[in-house]
């Protein structure tokens, strides 16, 4: 079972006390326990079981404006004594940085709301196995499916964050995740695709049949892909790819990229960076939200932010250190965004498909082709050719490229937002990108 609050708090306060005794003027500590149990299936048979119990601690000590940190998986006091001593010694020898500091006391989270992030249900391996059997039966229904690999994971975690400004809080979270990867084959081609579902509560998890069937359908329809010529064309991004655009946007407005000057969105607050109707929210207090949190990784309170209002950037994502550097207050985004999403557009999915006589619908991209310094974007892609609103045939071995500055100004969103990941987007259309193929 995952460790209780009392145990974690005791370890945390031991560390804070010891660091002070050894000469630290301030310190913060995180103690975290994650218990994870996974069962993997392949071709309708048990393939792997995996249980992990990870306990970890990380400590940051300050001496004035000097700072250093250590982390360890060994929580015996003997070991902590050695490590904290080393940490304080290293702190003494590390040069000062005027912006180093613990978060401002008045910004620390005070009242912690129950966001319904923990399901006490324990699912035994036999139950995981029966879910996966059902899933794989559904996934391998069609003869074209030649391989299925599925997995079911239960995660339970608990943590305490404490610092010498008086903050000490933490809470349990849980997640239940099922996924299926299927391979389909015909005479000429072999293709792979996947589907997955992840929820805080077991009872909210997608039905095994549906998940398996969806994975298989998505894979089979990719068979027999063609390569198309190079041209400028409208591109429709499936929700799972569109969410990635939003993640790139989040890293480009992180206060560290802004303060270092390494973002194409530097100095763009109050400027129009998206097309007119685009609104972006980051909402930490969604009940059962996959990205929900009561405070950020420094203990700073987190309010809902409307990051983009009618296409205009309103906020960066600010932590204590970079906030001090930029002369801005932390808005509780140390560690990144929470539940980040584009608000729905006002056009439905079919109308979006029909908005150009010819477009590409992208279901998967590969490669690390997002450059947040220049905004340049170039990735390998797989998808479908869409003509007059209809899916014509699958496409692969192409790349799509553009620059985010232009792409963001040319986004149209459908009205089909759902909260499947921590970061979510409706289906997205971007005009004017370049496809390279034959």
């Amino acid at each position: 079972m995952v460790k209780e609050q009392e145990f974690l708090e005791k370890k945390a306060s031991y560390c804070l006390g010891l660091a002070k005794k050894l000469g630290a003027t301030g310190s913060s500590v995180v103690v975290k326990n994650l218990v994870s149990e996974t069962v993997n299936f392949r071709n309708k048979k048990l393939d792997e079981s995996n249980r992990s119990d990870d306990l970890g601690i990380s400590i940051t000590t300050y001496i004035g404006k000097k700072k250093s940190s250590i982390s360890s998986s060994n929580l015996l006091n003997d070991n902590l004594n050695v490590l904290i001593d080393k940490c304080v010694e290293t702190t003494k020898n590390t040069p000062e940085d005027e912006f180093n500091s613990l978060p401002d006391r008045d910004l620390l989270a005070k009242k912690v709301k129950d966001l319904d992030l923990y399901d006490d249900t324990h699912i035994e391996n036999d139950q995981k196995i029966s879910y996966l059997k059902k899933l794989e039966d559904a996934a391998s229904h069609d003869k074209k499916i030649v391989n299925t690999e599925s997995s079911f994971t239960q995660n339970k975690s608990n943590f305490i964050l404490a610092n010498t400004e008086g903050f000490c809080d933490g809470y349990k979270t849980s997640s239940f995740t099922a996924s299926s990867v299927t391979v389909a084959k015909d005479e000429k081609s072999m293709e792979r695709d996947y589907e997955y579902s992840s929820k805080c509560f077991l009872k909210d998890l997608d039905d095994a049949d549906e998940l398996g069937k969806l994975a298989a359908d998505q894979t089979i329809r990719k068979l027999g892909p063609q390569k198309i010529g190079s041209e400028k064309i409208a591109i429709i991004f499936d929700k799972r790819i569109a969410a990635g655009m939003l993640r790139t946007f989040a890293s480009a407005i992180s206060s560290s990229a802004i303060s270092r000057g390494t973002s194409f969105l530097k100095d763009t607050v109050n400027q129009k960076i998206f097309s007119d109707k685009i609104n972006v929210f980051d909402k930490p207090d969604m009940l059962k939200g996959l990205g929900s949190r009561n405070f950020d990784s420094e203990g700073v309170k987190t309010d809902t932010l409307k990051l983009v209002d009618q296409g205009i950037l309103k906020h960066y994502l600010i932590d204590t250190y970079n906030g001090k550097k930029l002369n801005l207050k932390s808005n509780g985004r140390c560690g990144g965004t929470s539940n980040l999403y584009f608000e729905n557009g006002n056009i439905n999915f079919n109308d979006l498909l029909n908005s150009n006589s010819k477009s590409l619908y992208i279901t998967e991209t590969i490669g690390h082709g997002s450059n947040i310094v220049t905004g340049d974007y170039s990735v390998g892609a797989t998808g479908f050719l869409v003509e007059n609103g209809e899916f014509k045939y699958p496409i692969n071995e192409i790349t799509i490229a553009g620059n985010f500055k232009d792409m963001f100004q040319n986004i149209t969103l459908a009205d089909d937002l759902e909260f499947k990941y921590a970061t979510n987007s409706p289906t997205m259309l971007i005009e004017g990108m370049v496809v390279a193929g034959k």
Partner: protein
Amino acid sequence: MSNFFEKSDLSRNEAENIISDTLQKCDDGELYLENSKSETILLDDNKIKNSSYNSDLGFGFRAISGEVVAYSHSNEISKESLKQSSQNLKSTLKSVKGSYNHEIPKSNKKYYDNINPIEQKSLNEKIDILNDVNNYLRSKDGNVKQVTANFLGEQKSIEIIRSGGETLSDVRPLIRFNVSVMLEKDGRKETGVYGVGGRQSYDSYLKDDNWKSVCDEALRIATVNLESKPAPAGEMKVVLGPGWPAILIHEAVGHGLEGDFNRKKTSAFHNLMGQRVASEGVTIVDDGTIDNRRGSLTIDDEGTPTEKTVLIENGILKNFMQDRLNARLMNTRSTGSGRRENYRHIVLPRMRNTMMQSGNQTQDEMIRSVDKGIFAVSFGGGQVDITSGKFVFNCTEAYEIVNGKIGSPIKGATLIGDGPSILKEVSMVGNDMMMDPGIGTCGKAGQGVPVGVAQPSILINKMTVGGTKL
């Protein structure tokens, strides 16, 4: 050498008994113990941003029966914890009736020294070098707007205890030194990144002001990119430079030749053994035995000594890379390719140093033969879909080739190709084989492991370049 039982209520003898009892009717399995120490020292934005130290200790207990793998890990080495893991494995493998394979090859060779690189250089010395890097780059070019440099050092001690008490151990040093520089000129920003590393002390790479050459290379790449034009879009000839561009080999064919994907028949290569998969003259090996290289290992994470495995010989597919599990199920032997990121993860067949051997042409001949194409010198990273065989990699330094001559630099673009067919499009292999500088990390199933690559210059007849200029 770590003594994993020194501060534990669990004795070596008791551990051996639990291991033998748990694995008696299994086909394979072991207890894997690991103790690692690592440090990061980071300079960024004119300051030492981070100095951190990590110490990690734990075990992973694995039992295999037929195709089924049961795994349990914990970071508490105690009697209670190992017993709990044993129970967990037994409950997964309820009715096993295999016979344990005790055979494991032996070797006395070692490919790196038993050192702890972290302790070999003081914190102050490391901080001094990072500050020197910052000052050097900022004074060398007025357009430098940002400098990031870091030291990453690690010492990992492992011990493998097999059923019957057989014990194998290894101590692995690893370091990396990276420099990233951003230039800004006329409102345009570009970055250049370079690094060095391997399984030696920091000083093996940085003595005699060698750090300056790392800085110079990062600055040179950034400077080239400041002048870059939009990259072309479409199919064309591509000349790849020697060394690090071999991540093409890693992505295009390396992953597809890993044993697990071929046993499961999900790799585009699974039915191509003994067949032509590359042009004549193309030979590719995966070698874990090169002294001090980032991808080298004395023994793999199952205890098998590593080797030089021929994957493709003169264009013909010869071998897959195997761990013990996939080797047994495919009736072959382990190639010493069983690796894991750490004790939290199961073993998978992985690459070590993947290398294309030299041919006899020159880079100059290749460039002269191209009317329209690109010359790619440096890459960021790559990715592959092993099932469809399609792979990509991102150029970070590339030039257009016009009428047999190198032209203007072009912006970073993704190149995409088809793994099983790309090597048949190789029409020239250079005589200038080079290792990469020792910076690669390969990701698979959520596990990152250090790897190396090497190749000579090569000419590829046809690849799709993902630029924006039609």
